[in-house]
């Protein structure tokens, strides 16, 4: 069974641009979660999508947004990129028993 897959693995953008990251959950999982792992800030909850709806978001500005598609895949959009947005973005999907399983992550570098 395939795990959570994320693309691209690495992305380099210029300050002010937009970045789009993609995530495919484990087959059968309907919820997707996005986390940011930034140097010095640790792992922080970003967004939760379930059945195509945004269910909750962490303490991040509105320029962090996303959506979930009918096939439960998801994309995370970061607008007006700032240098501090450089981080590993981890996607996770919802397993049974209140457990989430993470993908390998997408490295975003803002220069």
């Amino acid at each position: 069974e395939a795990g959570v897959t994320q693309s691209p693995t690495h992305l380099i953008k210029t300050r002010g641009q937009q970045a789009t990251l993609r995530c495919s959950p484990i087959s059968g999982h309907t919820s997707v979660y996005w986390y940011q792992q930034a140097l010095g800030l640790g792992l922080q909850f970003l967004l939760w999508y379930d059945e195509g709806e945004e269910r909750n978001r962490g303490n991040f500005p509105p320029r962090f947004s996303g959506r979930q598609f009918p096939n439960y895949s998801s994309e995370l959009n970061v607008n007006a990129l700032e240098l501090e947005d450089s981080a590993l973005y981890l996607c996770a999907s919802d397993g049974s028993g209140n457990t989430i399983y993470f993908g390998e992550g997408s490295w975003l570098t803002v220069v």
Partner: protein
Amino acid sequence: AQSVTQPDIHITVSEGASLELRCNYSYGATPYLFWYVQSPGQGLQLLLKYFSGDTLVQGIKGFEAEFKRSQSSFNLRKPSVHWSDAAEYFCAVGTPGSARQLTFGSGTQLTVLP
């Protein structure tokens, strides 16, 4: 709001030695508790979890953790460390109703000496 503290930023052990990584949480009731491991440049792999019941839980790769309510702790242990265990370990807390919106500790980097 819940919080998680991993007091040890970095731990070094010799291969074959025992290991204990500390995790303390703050939450008014019994939380859902998790340990994840992250190898360099990789995502997070679930080692084990605790929701209720037996306070000693077994995980993958020979790891176990014990939930101690009186100490608000969920320490991770392994009796004999292998070189491949070198990685960063994260303790995380979820709450009933938002179990998947985890609060993570700052992580403990484990170095294994040959």
